[in-house]
């Protein structure tokens, strides 16, 4: 069995964000990057399946991005991926989900993966499109927002998370692509020996020019901080003073404290 996991490197969401010079994306200076949270669940599920099948499947990790993306790739390898492909693209952020998915599909086409895992969305762009588009371009059956996954003899049974706590259960035959939601599993922390082992694993490099180049179907016209409603009160400063002020406000404005 051949497994592909698609991952993205994104900034820590607790960062402060400002638009870049040409207002097409955020400024990357000063940001700390990590693996997209949803993708950690994707990597973990692939590794768990490999373990279930006695280590037989080969797990390839693919990621598109600039040089720093290698850090996220190394983490995925340290979690249990076997090899990786880095599509080195410094202009990744100007590409829309269609173009990103087309690059991944173009790479995956000749590889005949049986199963592809992606996160359900990225934390920065949040379009929730790339996985599904890859599946459609490759003609794979596809299920999104997985909070449950099991494999048995060429068929996977998935639990999709729906609104209000309800789950939808479905069966899909391989080849298939699934997108992973928070809570699907507990992503492992790479151990030191596995981090060392990962250093020896292959990271092949590809350039966008080697893949099918599609024209964009959507474009970012502008990026900007949201207008502040500015209604709420912000309490800063010394803890003791904050405590007293909040107490006063709650007594005055709510009926919950007397």
């Amino acid at each position: 069995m051949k497994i592909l996991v698609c991952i993205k490197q994104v900034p820590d969401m607790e960062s402060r964000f400002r638009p870049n010079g040409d207002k097409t994306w955020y400024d990357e200076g000063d940001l700390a990057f990590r693996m997209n949270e949803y993708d950690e669940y994707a990597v973990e599920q692939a590794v768990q399946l490999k373990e279930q099948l006695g280590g037989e499947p080969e797990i390839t990790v693919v990621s598109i991005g600039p040089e720093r993306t290698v850090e996220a790739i190394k983490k995925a390898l340290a979690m249990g991926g076997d090899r990786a492909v880095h599509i080195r693209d410094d202009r990744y952020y100007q590409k829309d989900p269609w173009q990103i998915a087309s690059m991944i599909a173009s790479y995956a086409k000749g590889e005949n993966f049986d199963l592809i895992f992606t996160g359900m969305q990225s934390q920065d762009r949040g379009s929730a499109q790339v996985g599904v588009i890859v599946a459609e371009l490759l003609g794979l059956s596809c299920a999104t927002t997985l909070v449950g996954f099991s494999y048995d003899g060429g068929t996977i049974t998935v639990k999709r998370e729906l609104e209000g706590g309800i789950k939808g259960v479905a069966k899909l035959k391989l080849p298939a692509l699934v997108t992973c939601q928070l809570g699907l599993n507990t992503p492992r922390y790479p151990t030191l020996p596995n981090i060392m082992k990962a250093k020896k694993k292959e990271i092949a490099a590809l350039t966008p020019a080697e893949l099918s180049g599609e024209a964009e179907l959507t474009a970012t016209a502008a990026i900007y901080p949201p207008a502040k409603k500015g209604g709420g009160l912000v309490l800063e400063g010394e803890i003791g003073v904050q405590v007293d002020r909040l107490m006063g406000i709650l007594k005055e404005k709510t009926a919950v404290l007397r």
Partner: protein
Amino acid sequence: MKALLIGEYRQGKLLDTTYELKAFADRLGADSVMLVVGSEADLPKYDGKVYLADAATYGEYNPDLHKQLVLQAVEKENPDCIVFVHSSYGWDLAPRVAVALRAGQVSEIVALNEGAYEVNACNAKLRRTVTPKSGRCVLTIQAGAFSPSGEPQGTPQLEKLELSGTASAIEFVGYEAAEQKGVDLSKAEIIVSAGRGVGKKDNVPVIAALANALGGELGASRPVVDAGWVDHSHQVGTTGQTVSPKLYVACGISGAIQHLAGMKRADFIVAINKDKDAPIGEIADVLVVADVMQFVPAFTAKCAR
């Protein structure tokens, strides 16, 4: 401009969010027609054409078949845009339709901005305006962002849709209902919720102690539940409980849309966050910029006095 609106059913019932599609089309100034894979027993109130495909035949949700039905309606109507709610139905189906039509998709639109669509980025810390470059586009709208102005009314003109074959690679097995056990936060008057910012499981009792001191219940954001720090029945949000307490205290919660969806109707919202820019600050009545583990114990002590 003509919009094809894709309504949504679950377990035979039309979902209320379907009406947000019409509200969005009105804001766009677009003419609209609707498609539902649903049941004649519960049709949308809508003045206009509704394509109806029978859910009993095509499944409540089967992506392969629903895609074909949408494409059939697109063929008949030749719309400029196809609009879904950004829900587990919409985000699953919309990109499939977009690929089939080679159309650009804009996901989770929160507002209109001079002909362009506004969407959030980076957990709502930034906004983007996106413009489709394809003639026809697929759009998904954020649930709750385009509320209908009045009670929906109207009688649809029905037109039935049918597919010639109904084979699909995906077999729907069934639904699993939400667990019924645990706390019912929907009636709580005071909720103090723990978010990822509390740092670790051992710190959760500090938040619970404040809930206790205020005579309220403990709530939680999703990562706290996923990590097993708190039972799922305490989760607030789209996939947890929807609450409307008199006081909601969010401790170390960033304010992602899916969390806000569950608690924004609280009468008074206090957020404790070390990040002054956290999106929760947008809806909080009071944002206390502090470390939760310093502020909360001090505040609890004051309440207990």
